[in-house]
């Protein structure tokens, strides 16, 4: 599966410009983490990829075919979990998955349904009405329907919302396994979710792609821009963005990113979160100028 986004812009009818001249290439197998603050344009990008929206400019190609002409073919190979979705409450989990399997055109879907129910740990609730499920269980039904039919392209928008920590780890591993032979796009604001499993990262803000590459490259870009210091020793430098404050017995220990670290800050090895915050901070500063 190969997705090429070429010079894509998206402006909503109310005039809000959600995406600006995006260029991006995604190839399977890969697990791509899509990061960005609220309003960065992540959901808009994913809606464009599932043909829920049409770009106001530019082209999206799926395996070389313009999406508007290959929409049906793409949908046949797509698994999508939107951030905000609903289920038919009157159906059981199995009935709902049977319904979605039919929508996806799966023939003889019973084995596939059993497999995804097992994958999302819902065996005990397979015959339960959806109206009786908890929020986390509903989220797992959503993930299960996306996995149905072994799609070549999976898009998950904030898939771990509502899941407890153990489930989040389980699903991170599930996505990682799924990406071994597929293209998986995982949008989240939880850095932990992408840190351990994604081999590619795309960072967006204000409708633009700020970074596209490996997590290591993103971390490397922040080297020399991350430091730690005691709060009591800190001055009032502009451009210093504190990313963490930890109370210790010796006072408050701060972690910060900056273009140029002040003298009182000791350089530190950047984490993925530091690198992400540095990138966003840097972009915000440039945008302000």
């Amino acid at each position, binding site marked *: 599966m190969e997705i090429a986004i070429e010079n894509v812009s998206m402006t*909503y*009818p109310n005039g809000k410009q959600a995406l600006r001249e995006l260029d991006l290439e995604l190839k399977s197998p890969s697990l791509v983490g899509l990061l960005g603050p609220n309003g960065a344009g992540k959901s808009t990008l994913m*809606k464009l990829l*599932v*043909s*829920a*929206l*049409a770009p106001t400019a530019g082209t999206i190609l799926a395996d070389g075919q313009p999406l508007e002409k290959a*929409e*049906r073919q793409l*949908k046949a190979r*797509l698994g*999508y979990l*939107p951030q*905000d*979705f*609903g*289920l*038919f*409450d*009157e*159906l059981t989990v199995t*009935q709902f998955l*049977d*319904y*979605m399997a*039919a*929508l*996806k*055109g799966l023939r003889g879907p019973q084995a596939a349904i059993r497999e995804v129910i097992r994958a999302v740990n819902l065996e005990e609730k397979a015959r339960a009405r959806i109206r009786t499920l908890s929020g986390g269980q509903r989220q797992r039904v*959503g993930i299960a*329907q996306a996995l149905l039919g072994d799609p070549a392209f999976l898009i998950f928008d904030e898939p771990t919302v509502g899941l407890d920590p153990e489930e989040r780890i389980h699903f991170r591993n599930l996505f990682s396994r799924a990406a071994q032979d597929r293209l998986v796009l995982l949008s989240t604001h939880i850095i932990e979710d992408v840190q351990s499993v994604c081999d590619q990262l795309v960072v967006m803000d204000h409708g633009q792609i700020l970074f596209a590459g490996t997590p290591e490259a993103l971390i490397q870009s922040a080297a020399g821009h991350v430091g730690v210091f005691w709060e009591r020793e800190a001055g009032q430098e502009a451009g210093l963005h504190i990313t963490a404050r930890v109370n210790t017995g010796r006072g408050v220990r701060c972690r910060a990113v900056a273009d140029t670290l002040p003298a009182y800050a000791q350089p530190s090895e950047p984490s993925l979160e530091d690198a992400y915050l540095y990138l966003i901070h840097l972009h915000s500063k440039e945008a302000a100028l």
Partner: protein
Amino acid sequence: MKTLRLFPLELGRLLRSRLTWLVVLLTVLSPAAGLILYKPAYADTMLSMYLANPALAGGVAGGILFALLTIFELDRARRSRTDMLTDAAVSPHAMALVRLLALLTAAVLATGLAMLVWLPISMGLIGAVFTGVDYVLAYLLFMGLALPLAILAAGAAYQFTQRTDLSAVLLAAFAGLSLTVWADDWQLCWLNPCVWAMSDDFTNFRLFRTVAWMRLTWLGILAGVWGVSYLCIRRYGKGLLGSLGRSVRRVWRPAIALALLVCSGTAYAAQPFYDNSNPDLTAMTLYELDYAEGVTFLDRTVQVFPDTEAGAVEGRAVYRFQNTSGKEWTACFGVDPGYDLTASVGGEAVPAVRTGYEESNMALWEIALPADGEVELTLEYGGFPKDWNLSSTVQGDPEISGIYLCLENQRLFPYLLNVLPGDEDYPTTVEVTLPGAMLAIPFGTSEAEVVAEHRDGTRTWRYASNSTGGILYAGDYVRQDIQAGGMTIEFYYGRKHQAVMEAAGAADAVRAVVDYCTEHYGALSFGTGDTLKLIQSRVAGGGYAVDGASLLNEEDFTTANLDDTGKGAIPGEVFIHELVHQWWGLGNMFDTADETSPWSSEGLTVYTTYRIVKELYGEDYAQKYYVDQWRQEVDDYFLNFYVRRPEYLEKLPEAERLNIAGSLSGVRHYSEMPLKILKAEQLVGGEAAMDQILHDLFNREVDPAYPYLTYQDFLDACHLTEEELDLG
């Protein structure tokens, strides 16, 4: 193909919803409203009361219920955001189509269940005149087709607006139009078809055809509108127009919607059931045409071939004229507006021009003829007859089927408008070929006889007449010849009604009434020959008579009417009552313009029935079942709250007011007036004196401008005043 695979799944999902089953249950129960609350079919036949009204009520209620279910279901996916998942798998267009098919299937299921549930109930209520064909067609057309129309309308409203509140308002307005402003337009009342009556004893195919035409026309219109709304299904985050712009790129989509709209628009404009007669009912253009100078009518031979399967007619009429003018001339014919016509003279085709003018259910045709002294004009005509547009809310006439038909004047053969009669008026020989089970009954003094029997089971009947037009009844009739009143009564009634007629002692009742009334009041003016045909007609809202024949409206002989104790103690007496109307009601007509007056044809009819029953069963019987009952009814009447305080009646809702007023009016006509006549009988000197008065009234010279027997005429004849007959 994917749509077909998705359909059973979406239907299964729909049928797992409790709301769906609630709607289905209410729809199945809704025909009950037609027995109690909603009775648009106002004729008193059993099928009108116990089949048409329940089916119509089921259509209105079921239509509204399914429309609401449609709006709810279409909005549900959006409201619950399930569409976020489904739209990623299939296009919203495919889902819209699948949801529509699922809702339509649920509607079919509801109709089928309603038909199953109501079958034994209808059979029990309707009794001997129940038939499966009427039942199935009534439920399918009056009820069943209302549901898909409502689903399409509601679906279109939602797809245009994407809002439940707006969709509900649009739907309410659309249904409201049908139930109010459009209620009297047979083509527009999509939810509540114009059905005023169903025949018990004969067929209802003409009625079914008109309703089917209306329903199918609307099905096309609403499918087209739904098709346009389908193009407006929101996609790619765009609004109505943006989505429309994207959807029309697949040209077949708007093409189908447009084709449906064009076809249904054509079906609307080209409806074959009603003509375009001049709406000015005083117009007499066709009857005031100048007679052709020097031309007289010699004779006419007609062969008519009703197509009882298609409800159509074909015919061939040969006219012979004498022309002494030596000039070419134009023959004018009034032809059923549904017929086409070709003409030839001596084997050579001559132009027959349809002028475009229609009046009194006749299209004016003109045929230029040569100056020859004797002209033989052959007309080949035929088609599906059109009814007069003024009767579009009383559908059903002209019925042509394998067990009943009535062909009147221009529907039987082209009606000659501008040629003077010869010495023998308009001598005509008519041959009509009918299915073997049908009897041909010329309405008048003519007698038809079978002149040929064909291999296909049909028979050709022939009769002669000399009138300008003619009326032919034919049907699967039972004929009983009864000697009474010094003549032979040919009594014809539908075979389907035979059991009811025999149970009511119809033949004996005919004999008793004709003997009694002829002896006491005189012979019927239209029964002056040796024979009188009494023909039970298909429900028509009234009867009429000509020399030698009179109609009995089937409404008067239903089981429900014959069981009406207000008209007689037993069914046979109700039968007597209805026959007495041949003298009081038809032989002498009554003007019933004043609703508050007790005077109507019923007073003298009930009084005469009492007198006949007194003669048949004795004074005690008549006193107990007639006079005592009248007194009781009248006593109750004067104690009635609304009679004592009529100002409160005016304050009631219209439907209730009309119901109470109708009931009170019935007491005045059926009980108060007979008591007044009984009082008059005592005041004028007894039964013999009253008989003489009524005899004189019956045979009085009638003013053709106002041919009605009034209360004042009666009082004057009795030399009494209104106050003297006061019962207080």
